């Protein structure tokens, strides 16, 4: 799985690509845990290139969200493809995550709260 990341100010952005299944989710999990371990508090997951997300993928997102919110941080989602959005919706996760259409909006979402 391709797994890029970049920064915008103090916001870290992860860009996974392809299928987020059990195997690739492990990779993403390691990446996000590493970033949080390095002190990242504001994270955006841009899922524009993710075609499929399994429950393992949801679990990685949930684990990172829980960990970040514990210390006052947050994980916001951006650019969900219809299928991916549906998976989040079915699990009820759309009421848990802040979801944005554009990556910039998600990054700005952090600014508003200061």
């Amino acid at each position: 799985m391709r797994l890029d990341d970049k920064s915008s100010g103090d916001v870290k952005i992860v860009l996974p690509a392809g299928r987020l299944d059990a195997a690739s989710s492990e990779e993403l999990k390691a990446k996000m845990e590493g970033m949080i371990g390095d002190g990242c508090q504001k994270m955006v997951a841009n899922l524009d290139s993710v075609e499929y997300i399994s429950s393992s993928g949801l679990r990685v997102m949930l684990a990172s969200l829980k960990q970040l919110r514990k210390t006052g941080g947050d994980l916001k989602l951006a650019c969900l493809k219809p299928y991916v959005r549906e998976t989040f919706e079915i699990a009820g996760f759309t009421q848990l995550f802040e979801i944005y259409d554009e990556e910039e909006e998600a990054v700005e979402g952090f600014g508003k709260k200061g």
Partner: protein
Amino acid sequence: MAAMSGSLLLTLIDKICVIVVAAYLITRTRRFSEVLAGKLTPKNQAAMILTFGAFSVFGTVSGVEISGVIANVRDLGPMIGGLVGGPLVGLGAGLIGGGYRYLLDGFTGLPCSIATVFAGVFGGIVYILNRQKFVGIRGAVVFSVFVESFHMLLVLLISEPYSEAVMVVRETGIPMIASNAIGMLIFAFMISNLIKERETEEERDEYFDELEKKKLELNIAREIQQSFLPEMVPPLKGFDLAAKSLPAKEVGGDFYDFIPISGDEIGLVIADVSGKSVPAALFMVLSRAMVKASATGNTSALKVAKRANDLISADAKSGMFVTLFYAILDQGARTLRYVNAGHNPPLVLDGETGDLTLLKTRGIAMGVMDDAEMEEKVIEIGEGDLVVFYTDGVTEAVDDEYHQFGTERLVETVKKNSHLPAVDLVEKITGEILAFSRGAPQFDDITLMVLKGEKGR
């Protein structure tokens, strides 16, 4: 003089062939392997002392005599013994080799025998300094050059008359150093090969152990999961019910359950735990127990779901969650009261109109948050109506190009086969999924439950 040294060197090289064979035979013995592996038992040490002592004696005997001095590889055995087996082995082999030399005549007898003892002890010191490991090819060869130089120094210091000692050193110095270095090279090469072989073996064993463990884990997870699924479907009045779960190779923690509530009421559960293998299987057992405990005697599907969620959330760590659909089937009233906690919405096919309804409610997967907002809804189930409960393993089953079976194919299969009894419909759907995936690996558990309305009482 130079010519003489040259022919001497040739003669000594001649002995190298013998050394190669000896090196091969010695390094292949079981005791030597054990010593290399660090097992310095008294028996192993004694065996090494005798072996390398004997090799040292052989070095003396096979030497070439020049001016009353034997140019030889006597020091080689004790050196190797020390480098591989520590100071005791080095000393022992040195005493044997040196002692034998001392019994022979020659004015360099004393320094030569002392040098052999020192060669073994120095080898042992290097062994200890190198944290009880063999020092490697280069280290061993450099070491042998150092020891032979020291040997020559001893001859110069101790032997009388000094002028003859100088001549001996001049004649034999270079050939002694060279032949011992070459002998050492041969041994060190074989030893380091042996060490590498052993490491590769260990890695391979470790890999297989890991694989074995993984297999065992998969089996355990599968057994846990299967042993907690109901063995049979309870008999119902006016309804036909069937269920089946096909675990993936790496089980995903799907489950279903039937819970008697009261007279006409029975609780139906289908759920999918996030994650894989043993952790998922254990979380499945936990979730199932929480739901069962919450459901027994409770006629409100909403209360059951909320209670179960609070219990599961209290125990859910590191993002574990379970999507769960809970329904209470009232066989008398012919109703299904249900709560959907983040699960794939079951399909309802109207027996008369063929209309399709999805059983969705407000809700979120269990274990995500305490006090989650949920909602209970109710539908009637008439004669010929069909409810298909499933987990995402059904719709997300893939063929070898990652095309998904999908909801549409599921609906199509259900519509086409709605006349079948529940148990046959379950078989039909799983058969279609397996035919669709055409041998592509099953990544997730496939779990299905079919409820069919029959003639009322």
